[in-house]
């Protein structure tokens, strides 16, 4: 290690210039960073539910359904119809839009005594303008199941314009374009924009403004904490500089390797700022404490001492992040894990190579080397750590019991943990997007698309009848308001031919009814060109996990019972995806935590050359994770795509505190030979650093409270809590365990002596 340190100092100029060059290169790349807020693109391709859902999108003109709701006191007015037509037209002529369905262009099949009228519900070139026409339109719309509550709300005060996007369209750009086009129409009615494409667009706006607002705040807060603890310009500059460079490199690497910023990875800068500064802090701390007179020698010595612990701290943290790669379902969570780990390692390398090189190159040594002010007593040691030590030694068992009670409470709380995968929950309650989703849900049966995919001969009576049967079954669920399929159209056509609203038994009849349907816009959304696949389209009104679960399991049972050689049925859509996501949240939480715990245990055990000490070190962090989940259960903070990250991150960062305490204990034990003294010394000396570290990391993450995305707010709170938990655990629970095990050993040893 000493050799390495010497080499670092020798090559200082090369290091400094290459860091500078790389930073310029990656900094240049960052401008090409794009944001992808599409949660669907993050579904893994090897998952059948997800890939079917994506496939539907390409085959049936887009699964990305957007909705614009127009609300007024009564939509059956000429002027409002005119406005709906305006919206419809402006959507129709937007690039990237696949289909548009609205009151003014929806296909209508009317049968009358004299024949069939296939046409539009409303003649868009001759909108009804007499009260009698409007009244009869209203009556007709409310008489037909396929319109009532589907295209016009049941109270007649709102109507919806639905659109789907082309599969290869840039969804966010199209959504943005649609929104601005429609807003520019300056319509007097209240408009709501909803559906996934719209939500994604809004989320990505929020992501951008989050980054712009939050990063500087994190910067300032960490700078303040650094200033307070180091009281020097260097102490503020170097940690922030390395963290900042780590952020730039990480983002640059993301761009170069072709990754996009997602709703998750947008917190990478915040995480890296909060964490990346830590390693430099350790290095600086070590340099500050060195008492060598020769500056260069002091630097080398300090470096030699700190390299191993810093590597260990960074590697355990990186493991916490890497554990997502193995456990996560969403690719964006994996990506987050990889790049945060990369960023952590970059911060590590910078703190070991760049910081000493920079100090040496620019002679950024401290102006005066502080000569022994023996055990500079500060408020922290005096008011907190000293009493703490006294308490721990007096009542180790009480302390343990207190922890026991806390943990029991937490375990109890864990049973109340909820999960949330609903996109709308990501917005604050008063956010317009959230409000829109509520309106969609109340008036139009939600915006979550549901599809049942049928494989078979779409013109066979058997398949079409099964479609009708399935639709009836679906509608029994209170959360399904409308369904649409080609079977409905065939039934209506059959009715129009005067043979009743049913699927004809004769295939020849179906084929001939098809003749009229062929070429209608809606057909490409319902059946494949080869007529071997068709879908039932529907929407699900609830976003409650319970309702979604119930519906999907009921549907899957129905599908199992009804599929046959000639008909293959499959359920897909957002509810299915949500169920998958939901299960995966819990699963990935387990697997990434277990992987992280085992890895950390192994590494810490190896480093300390003692498995039992490895176990002791992990106890506070496991306790912290229990408290974390207990807290989530009690406060109702749900497990979602952001909060699912907290456990492993807490483990990766929190373990550092335990490592500090245990290594300190080992060091002082060797020095004094007395375990109790060693513990006291360790708490008094390392306690300071731990507390400062907890405060700075927690403060950095707490900034996320100001995020506009709810899961990120929760994420910030939870990481902060974990930091406190693991810090306090390392300072109380761990020493108590050490005290008790040492007392036991003493007793055993004494017994042996006798």
């Amino acid at each position, binding site marked *: 290690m000493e050799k390495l340190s010497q080499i670092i100092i020798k090559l200082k100029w090369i290091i400094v210039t290459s860091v500078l060059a790389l930073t310029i290169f990656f900094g240049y790349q960052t401008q090409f960073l794009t944001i992808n807020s599409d949660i669907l693109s993050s579904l893994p391709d090897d998952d059948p539910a997800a890939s079917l859902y994506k496939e539907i999108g390409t085959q049936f003109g887009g699964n990305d359904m957007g909705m614009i709701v127009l609300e007024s006191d009564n939509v059956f007015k000429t002027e409002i119809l005119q406005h709906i037509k305006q919206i419809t037209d402006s959507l129709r002529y937007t690039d990237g839009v696949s289909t548009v369905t609205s009151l003014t262009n929806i296909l209508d099949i009317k049968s009358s005594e004299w024949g*069939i009228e*296939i*046409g539009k519900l409303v003649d868009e070139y001759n909108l009804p303008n007499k009260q009698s026409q409007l009244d009869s339109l209203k009556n007709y719309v409310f008489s037909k199941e396929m319109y009532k509550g589907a295209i016009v709300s049941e109270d007649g005060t709102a109507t919806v314009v639905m659109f789907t996007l082309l599969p290869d369209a840039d969804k966010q750009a199209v959504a943005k374009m649609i929104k601005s086009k429609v807003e520019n129409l300056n319509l007097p009615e209240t408009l709501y924009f909803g559906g996934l494409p719209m939500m994604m667009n809004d989320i990505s706006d929020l992501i951008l403004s989050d980054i712009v607002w939050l990063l500087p705040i994190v910067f300032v807060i960490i700078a303040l904490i650094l200033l307070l603890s180091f009281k020097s310009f260097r102490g503020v500059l170097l940690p922030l500089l390395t963290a900042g460079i780590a952020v730039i490199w990480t983002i640059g690497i993301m761009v170069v390797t072709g990754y996009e910023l997602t709703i998750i990875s947008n917190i990478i800068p915040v995480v890296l700022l909060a964490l990346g500064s830590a390693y430099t802090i350790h290095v600086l701390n070590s340099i500050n404490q060195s008492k060598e007179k020769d500056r260069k020698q002091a630097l080398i010595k300090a470096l030699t001492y700190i390299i191993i612990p810093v590597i260990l701290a960074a590697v355990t943290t990186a493991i916490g992040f890497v554990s997502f790669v193995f456990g996560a379902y969403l690719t964006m969570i994996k990506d987050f894990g990889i790049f945060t780990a990369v960023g952590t390692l970059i911060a590590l390398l910078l703190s070991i190579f760049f910081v000493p090189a920079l100090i040496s190159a620019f002679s950024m040594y401290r102006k005066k080397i502080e000569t022994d002010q023996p055990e500079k007593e500060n408020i922290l040691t005096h008011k907190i750590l000293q009493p703490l030590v006294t308490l721990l030694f007096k009542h180790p068992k009480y302390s343990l019991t207190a922890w026991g009670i806390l943990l029991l409470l937490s375990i109890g709380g864990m049973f109340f943990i909820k999960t949330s995968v609903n996109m709308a929950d990501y917005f604050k309650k008063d956010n317009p997007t959230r409000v829109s989703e509520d309106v969609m849900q109340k008036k139009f049966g939600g915006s979550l698309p549901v599809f049942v995919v049928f494989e078979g001969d779409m013109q066979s009576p058997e398949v079409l009848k099964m479609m009708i049967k399935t639709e009836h079954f679906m509608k029994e669920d209170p959360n399904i308001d409308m369904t649409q399929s080609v079977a409905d159209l065939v039934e209506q056509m059959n009715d129009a031919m*005067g043979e009743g609203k049913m699927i004809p038994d004769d295939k020849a009849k179906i084929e*001939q009814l098809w003749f*009229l349907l062929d*070429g209608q816009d809606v057909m490409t959304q319902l059946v494949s060109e080869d007529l071997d696949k068709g879908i039932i389209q529907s929407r699900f009104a609830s976003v409650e996990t319970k309702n979604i679960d119930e519906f999907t399991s009921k549907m899957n049972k129905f599908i199992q019972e009804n599929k046959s050689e000639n008909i293959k049925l499959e359920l897909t859509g957002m509810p299915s995806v949500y169920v998958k996501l939901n299960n995966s949240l819990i699963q990935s939480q387990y697997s990434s935590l277990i992987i992280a715990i085992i890895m950390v245990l192994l590494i810490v055990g190896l480093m300390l050359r003692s498995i039992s000490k490895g176990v002791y070190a992990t106890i506070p962090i496991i306790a912290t994770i229990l408290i974390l989940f207990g807290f989530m259960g009690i406060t109702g903070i749900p497990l979602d795509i952001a909060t699912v990250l907290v456990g492993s991150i807490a483990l990766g960062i929190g373990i550092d505190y335990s490592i500090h305490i245990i290594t300190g204990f080992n060091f002082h034990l060797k020095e004094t030979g007395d375990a109790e003294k060693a513990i006291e010394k360790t708490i008094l000396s390392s306690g300071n650093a731990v507390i400062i570290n907890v405060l700075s990391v927690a403060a950095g993450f707490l900034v996320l409270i100001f995020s506009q995305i709810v899961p990120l707010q929760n994420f910030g709170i939870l990481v902060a809590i974990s930091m406190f938990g693991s810090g306090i655990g390392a300072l109380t629970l761990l020493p108590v365990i050490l005290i008790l095990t040492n007392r036991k050993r003493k007793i055993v040893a004494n017994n042996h002596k006798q």
Partner: protein
Amino acid sequence: MKIQTVVLTALIVAGSMFSANAQDASTILKKMDDVMYSPKDMTGKNKIILIDKNGKQEIREATIQQKGTDKRIFRFTAPASQSGIAVLSLPNDVMYLYLPAFGKERRIATSAKNQNFAGTDFSYDDMESVLFSVKYTPKLVKTEGNVYVLELTPIGGKSDYSKVIVRVNKTNYYPESMEYYDKGNNKIKEARYTFKKIGNYWNAAEIEMTDLKKNHKTKMQMSDVKYDTGLTDDDFTVRKLKQ
């Protein structure tokens, strides 16, 4: 054909060539209408080839009878599942459909003229034999090689198109191509015409319509065309439809 007729035709053609520069857009369009809609009646076979974006073809066949510009019977002969289906179009948007599997005819009204006809890339609007000079206001954009380029604007705004660009053959006044623009001013469809002279008339032997948005193509090919065989109104009745 008598020599006199040939000479006469040649004279007329030559004469119109000389006066070409002086012609205004509406004269050109009227002449195009004359070329397209002058036969008293027509019978023939129609082959409809649908080509999807992967190049896959689907073929339908039908016989056509037409009288004037506003009476027409389309009778499908292939594929088997559609064989016998017949569509009778009468003036004023009156249409009857006969489905042999039901043994019944029904009057159908398509208030939505922008919908495609029976899976083709032709909308009901495109299929209508209403004179172009009635539906559109023309503007001569330029003359180019052997064509006049006309820009047609729909009259009355009841169309899905914002404009149609037609290239009219300078010599014979049949359209060579039409480009359809939507209201966002995007070119959405394109038709290419191949005309052949049959008897006294120019016949659209093939019309190839491409839907540029869907990347889907329809070719309509005419064969066995006979003109002026003396069809009467009685050939265009519901009773005839069912035969």
